[in-house]
């Protein structure tokens, strides 16, 4: 497949992924899915899977509450996967690419929410004050979704089409230690996401469960599926022993 067609297909998928993240939220926009899809388009699914897993780990628990805009996982995974495959540099190269791109994506999203969508929202308000329902749908849904192609699809296209040598050149110019450092930092970034998640928990008195989960995983080497089941068991125990009993007594 020519690089032009490849870049167009990646850009198309990225645009669709953003539309999904703004509408149905089937989550095809997460790194774990974007990685292998871009890999499929570019003919190297296994690199796509590896990059998707690595970046998903970086962003796993990064949730941003309310109005905060998180670093962008979708565009960064698409471009990082493309670069990793074109550059043949493995996942370290991908991590080094993903993080800076995720901040570029974040800036694009902030621009979208502050400038573009405020403009569309006022147009929508204007339309509906004249009872023009078509105008509401166009300005609330159709036009903002089309801007996703400009904000995210085009950068993805440019990065894949012109990027390989360009990005490879930049990355080759970066000292090895910085690339290693970025991937070391990438391994630690999960801590920020988990800390953020912990800070949103409303009932703090359950903190010992944190250590229960930790010790099962750390000493007993229970994998993540086992930890999820442990969570289900503890929630069920608490429900039956505490809440259900209370309701029965009341």
């Amino acid at each position, binding site marked *: 497949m020519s690089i032009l067609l490849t870049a167009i297909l990646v850009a198309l998928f990225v645009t669709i992924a953003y539309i999904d993240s*703004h*509408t*149905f*939220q*089937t989550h*095809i926009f*997460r790194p*774990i*899915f974007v990685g*292998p899809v871009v890999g499929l388009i570019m003919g190297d*699914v296994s690199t796509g*899977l590896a990059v*998707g*897993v690595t970046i998903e780990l970086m962003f*796993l*628990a990064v*949730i*941003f509450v309310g109005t905060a805009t998180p670093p962008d996982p979708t565009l960064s995974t698409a471009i990082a996967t493309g670069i990793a495959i074109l550059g043949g540099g493995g996942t370290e190269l991908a991590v080094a690419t993903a993080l800076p791109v995720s901040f570029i994506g974040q800036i694009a999203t902030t621009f979208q929410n502050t400038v573009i*969508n405020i403009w569309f*929202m006022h147009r*929508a*308000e204007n339309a509906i*004050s004249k009872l023009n329902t078509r105008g*509401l*749908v166009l300005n*609330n*849904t159709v036009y903002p979704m089309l801007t996703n192609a400009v904000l995210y699809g085009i950068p993805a296209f440019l990065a894949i089409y012109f990027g390989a040598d360009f990005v490879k050149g930049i990355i080759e110019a970066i000292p090895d230690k*910085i690339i290693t*450092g*970025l*991937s*070391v*930092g990438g*391994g630690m*970034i*999960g*801590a*920020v996401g*988990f*800390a953020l*998640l*912990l*800070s*949103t*928990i*409303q009932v*703090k008195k*359950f903190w010992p*469960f944190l250590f229960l*989960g*930790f010790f099962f*995983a*750390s*000493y007993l080497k229970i994998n*993540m599926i086992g930890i*999820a089941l*442990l*969570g289900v068991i503890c*929630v069920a125990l*608490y429900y039956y022993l505490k809440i259900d009993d209370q309701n029965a007594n009341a």
Partner: protein
Amino acid sequence: MENEKKLTKKDLWKVFWNQMTIRTANNYERQQNAGFTQAMMPVIEKVYDDPEDKKEAYDRHMEYFLTQDMVSALPVGISAAMEERYANERDFDPSTINSVKTALMGPLAGLGDSLLNGTARPIFAGLAISLVSAGTGWVGPIMFVICMAILSLGVRYLGVFQGYKQGVSLVAKFQSSGLISRISELAGIAAYIIVGGFIPALVYLHIPIEYTSGETTIKIQETLDGLMPGVLGLLYTGLMYYLITKKKVSAIKLIFITMIVGIVGVYAGILG
């Protein structure tokens, strides 16, 4: 008394599909207001005849609205019931509709963010990662998307249809039964276990320092792993938690700081 205008199943399905656009024009001025208005469009077009009534209703919903995207379906469903009742009965002040929406925004946002984005999504993603690591290829990613799609569409379906069916009584029930605090207790337990259990696998710090005394070489990482595997990740998470909750450092800053710590650590030879 003129004919009552009741919403049908078909109307509610239209609401369900229009609710998908809740955040398409998400904006920092009034957030999901245009999306909420589009979700209410099938209701307003159905229950009101008088253009002035329609205008008033649309204006109402163009006010500020923000909650988690999926659970926003619940206030949409409840508002549909309230608009329908107001159009037919005129027995309450329509500003109540916005009061109910505003009352629900906060608790639902907290619930949606911690339960769906904070608990369910990391669990499904963690399982998908385990599956990929086990060499099963596409199984993990596809399972992840199927689970999340069921969750997203299921929550929205329940929100619109149950919200409409139970209407305002649902809000009262919510508040009196303390359901929200109950769910947040259960979500809290799950979140603590998941975070604790995922830290050893997902937050990795490795200290490559070793020193020799006489015959034996002592590797710090091996010693630490012998005492408590993954303890560095736990400590670093604790530090981040302290900085977020007590020092109010923003997460973006901490991400930058972490990357810099990684680079500096590699240069200094204490991380690798």
